[in-house]
């Protein structure tokens, strides 16, 4: 890597600005005026923070908490009609209200941003290198074209694009998502800015790529010495990376402090709930997750008091009187004072900037600190009944699903009139697994590994291209139309995206009634059953006549679950059921799934990319890579002793929401991207990225390259891995 020059100049940069804050945001408020008589949306209501050189501030919050809007406001990127008040100072200079031209000179050079979606961040019609060179040229017109080009290559190299000289001339569509995000980061670093704002930079990426990007951001901070503002909803991502954390809720910071204070000594019920709602990969028995009931308030119609009070388990009447200020623990006014002041006393915002100590916007924070409460103490944790199957050995339970040597290949065609086959996408390439009654089998893997294709093959109940699928002992190859229809009663699916899995034109009642009507249930029974299901998944009777658009993501996912349960299936297929939901909502849905399984004895086939959720919910886990299963076994042993190098890397790539452990861990960062499923490597398909392959001797490597490993048992038990050199 040719990073020396960058490092040298960056360090020179660092010295002259000692401890003065680089970016100071004070009392920032953003309001979007409502159109057509709609109420105004108060997206951000008084955010203050400062960041110094080399410091990383994490802004954490759920969707709609105003975290992105506040950073867009500091970049001056909000639309004209937004009303912004407060102050944003960059090196002491006020930049709020600067005109676009003056702002454009700052952007990229002093303050730059990495966006969430790497797919839309680059112009598709220019080469990646030219776009980077343009970023250099625009702020430094004196640079020669050749100089800018050289710098662009250097930057590409720095962010780990292999063969940078050559890839300079690639167009964005030739890059994978992870590589495009690297280019975006390179662009943000191009002019050695003093502040880099990262708006959910890894949300759209797979875990192994996320680990690469986080690594790269650490490099970026080291190389440029810039202050980084890291916006995320994932408490794991920030734990090991940031110095300080600001937790936002309903457009306001509700807690701020050092990363250890927030993670270990949170004094705000919201933060405590968020931390309790995260499924932990590192804990053996976590018990039920802590769900935060309800949904965030509408930003156009906020309650007068604490915005979290309606969802807070320890709310007092005083909480509804005035919005609490962000104050140090113990310095909140007492309840008597609040009552005396009444509602009109509105929070006099006296906080004089960021002091660096932990501050909380909760009137009971002092009490929480004194009593040392944790999330489990203040939130009612639901009891999840023990499954009646847990004492029956696995082998004795009836088999719900068996997949043997299943393949799904898509032909790649070329030519308009005379189509000819030019290749094959090996979406699913010979997988075997089985699932028993009352058991949860999880299929995990990165995007493009064939998880969803497998599900579609199973749900289709058609004869597969090769191999066999048998559901409840019946092979799908020999099914007639009527048999297939009957079998559908026993297996249902819950989809990933709660937006698109419910027909927007149907009422909730009709949606849940559809499977019943299809299978010929009498009208009276249908009605009774639908209301029963609505109640079962925790919705209210009056919800029946509403449309999906009127519900939040979590509620919609509950409707999807109710629909899937309508016919009392024995096997429920869950296609990433919680990945589109916020953490606090996700916890509720995960708990619901576990409760339903225990109560109804369902078997789950759970597809996910989030290994923490899988650890929490699954009994067995199968790890997929490029259409094959590379490791399968019971969850406890796979997580404790991963045998396949890919499983090891996956597990290691997941950030833990525990700062101390996270800092102590060493991540296995895989190189490169997932190879194309149209052209998988010979032999072991993982060898191109394998961390173990590099350490092997020449003849051993030869074996990896030529012989395709079979899934073989590793530790005698249930665990099996497809690696010639699996850990035993």
């Amino acid at each position: 890597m040719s990073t020396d020059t960058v490092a040298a100049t960056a360090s020179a940069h660092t010295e002259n600005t000692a401890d003065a804050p680089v970016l100071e945001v004070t009392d920032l408020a953003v309001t979007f005026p409502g159109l057509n008589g709609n109420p105004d949306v108060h997206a951000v209501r008084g955010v203050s923070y400062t960041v110094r050189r080399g410091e990383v501030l994490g802004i954490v919050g759920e969707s709609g908490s105003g975290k992105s809007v506040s950073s867009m406001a500091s970049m001056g990127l909000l639309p004209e009609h937004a009303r912004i008040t407060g102050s944003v100072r960059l090196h002491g200079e006020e930049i709020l209200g600067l005109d676009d031209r003056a702002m454009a000179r700052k952007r990229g050079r002093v303050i730059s941003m990495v966006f969430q979606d790497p797919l839309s961040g680059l112009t598709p019609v220019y080469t990646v290198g030219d776009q980077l060179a343009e970023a250099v040229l625009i702020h430094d017109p004196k640079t020669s074209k050749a100089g800018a080009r050289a710098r662009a290559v250097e930057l590409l190299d720095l962010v780990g694009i292999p063969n940078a000289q050559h890839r300079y001339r690639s167009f964005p569509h030739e890059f994978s998502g992870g590589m495009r995000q690297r280019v975006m980061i390179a662009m943000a670093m191009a002019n050695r800015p003093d502040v880099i704002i990262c708006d959910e930079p890894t949300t759209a990426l797979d875990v192994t790529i996320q680990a690469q990007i986080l690594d790269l951001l650490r490099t970026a901070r080291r190389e440029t010495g810039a202050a980084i503002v890291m916006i995320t909803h994932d408490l794991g991502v920030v734990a090991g990376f940031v110095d300080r954390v600001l937790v936002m809720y309903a457009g306001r910071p509700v807690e701020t402090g050092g990363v250890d204070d927030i993670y270990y000594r949170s004094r705000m019920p919201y933060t405590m709930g968020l931390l309790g709602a995260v499924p932990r990969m590192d804990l053996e028995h976590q018990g039920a997750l802590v769900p935060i009931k309800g949904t965030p308030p509408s930003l156009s119609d906020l309650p007068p008091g604490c915005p979290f009070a309606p969802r807070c388990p320890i709310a007092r009447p005083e909480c509804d009187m005035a919005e609490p200020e962000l104050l140090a623990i113990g310095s909140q006014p007492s309840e008597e004072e609040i009552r005396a002041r009444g509602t009109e006393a509105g929070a006099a915002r006296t906080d004089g900037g960021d002091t660096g100590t932990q501050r909380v916007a909760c009137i009971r924070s002092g009490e929480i600190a004194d009593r040392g409460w944790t999330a489990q103490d203040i939130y009612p944790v639901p009891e999840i009944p023990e499954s009646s199957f847990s004492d029956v050995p696995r082998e004795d339970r009836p088999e719900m699903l068996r997949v043997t040597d299943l393949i799904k290949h898509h032909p790649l065609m070329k030519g308009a009139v005379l189509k000819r086959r030019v290749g094959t996408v090996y979406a699913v390439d010979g997988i075997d697994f089985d699932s028993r009654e009352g058991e949860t089998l999880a299929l995990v893997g990165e995007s493009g590994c064939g998880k969803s294709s497998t599900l579609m093959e199973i749900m289709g109940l058609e004869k597969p291209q090769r191999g066999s699928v048998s559901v409840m002992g019946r092979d799908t190859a020999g099914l007639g139309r009527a048999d297939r229809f009957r079998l559908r009663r026993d297996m249902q699916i819950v989809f990933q995206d709660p937006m698109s899995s419910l027909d927007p034109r149907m009422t909730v009642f009709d949606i849940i009634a559809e499977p019943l009507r299809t299978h010929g249930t009498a009208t009276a029974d249908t009605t009774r059953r639908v209301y029963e299901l609505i109640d079962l998944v925790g919705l209210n009777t009056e919800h029946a006549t509403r449309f999906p658009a009127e519900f939040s993501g979590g509620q919609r996912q509950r409707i999807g679950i109710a629909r899937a349960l309508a016919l009392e299936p024995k096997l429920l297929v869950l296609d990433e059921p919680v990945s589109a939901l916020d953490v606090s909502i996700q916890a509720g849905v995960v708990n619901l799934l576990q409760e339903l399984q225990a109560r109804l004895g369902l078997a789950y086939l759970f597809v996910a990319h989030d290994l923490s959720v899988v650890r929490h919910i699954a009994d067995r886990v199968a790890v997929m890579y490029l259409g094959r299963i590379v490791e399968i076994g019971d969850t406890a042993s796979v997580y404790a002793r991963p045998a396949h190098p890919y499983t090891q890397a996956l597990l290691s790539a997941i950030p833990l929401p525990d700062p101390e452990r996270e800092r102590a861990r060493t991540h296995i960062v895989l190189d490169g991207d997932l190879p194309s499923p149209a052209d998988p490597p010979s032999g072991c398909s993982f060898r191109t990225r394998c961390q173990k392959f590099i350490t092997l001797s020449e003849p051993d490597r030869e074996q990896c390259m030529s012989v395709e490993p079979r899934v073989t048992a590793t530790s005698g038990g249930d665990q099996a891995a497809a690696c010639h050199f699996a850990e035993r």
Partner: protein
Amino acid sequence: MSTTEESTAPVQAPTVPPAPNRLKDIARQLLGTPRVIVGLALLVLLAAFAFAGPLLTAWDVGGRDFSAMLEGPSPEHWMGTNRTGQDIFTQATAGLQKSLLIGLLVAVISTGVAAAVGAFAGYFGGVTDKGLMWIADLALVLPNFVILAILSRHFVGQGGWLILVILLAAFSWMVTSKMVRGLTISLREREYIHAARFMGVPSYRIILRHILPNMSSLLIADATIMVSAAIIGETALSYFGLGVQSPDISLGMVIAEGSSFATTAPWVFAFPTALLVVMVLAVNMVGDGLRDVLDPYSKSRRS
């Protein structure tokens, strides 16, 4: 029963609430929208007017008043007369009869065919798609005016206008069906369609219950436009003496006849045109209202 989140929820009353009825709901909402009421009222009035109008005047549909040619409105001729002394009011209201029927029927048939062909082609793909789209392409490239002209000659006489309706519809569904097909292809991959399929819902029901309702905005817009398009198309045919044949008369014929006098004798043109405009407006109002009621995202529904 308790659930994880709302364990404190009151125990459900033993009586099961009745199932909501979507059709009743839609009807109730439709009738609660002023626009729809006005539109429907206008349509009813127009229909009444069309059938009662010719009886109200002393003049026959074909009758001529040789004493008043191209005269302005007067007590005898409420809306004046045309070049040959025919009473405009009688002519226009009688023409409205046929035009109302032609416009509405063509719109319904053509949009229905377009929806069915497009949705089936898009949903099933493969051979079905190829076959249906081949037919659509064929219908597009055929010189439909010529075919209409030839065929309409054959069906002159009683009920000839019904054949005309079918012919007009037969040559106007193709473009919409292609749009419907495109939309269907994108809707087909939605998860709720997968969900319905995995439930065992038969394909035709998926198309009727999930795909077509989700493009109702397009279909309604298409149908409302088609009403005026059909009337104008019929006019064009009539202009060449091929559409509605006398003694039948259509609004289009009256307008076509009066259009050359639009500046010199505006009454000849104004009254029938006003009838056409009111009619299209009424259809639009009903269509708009229907679209809003069916669309759960529309603003007016949730206000």
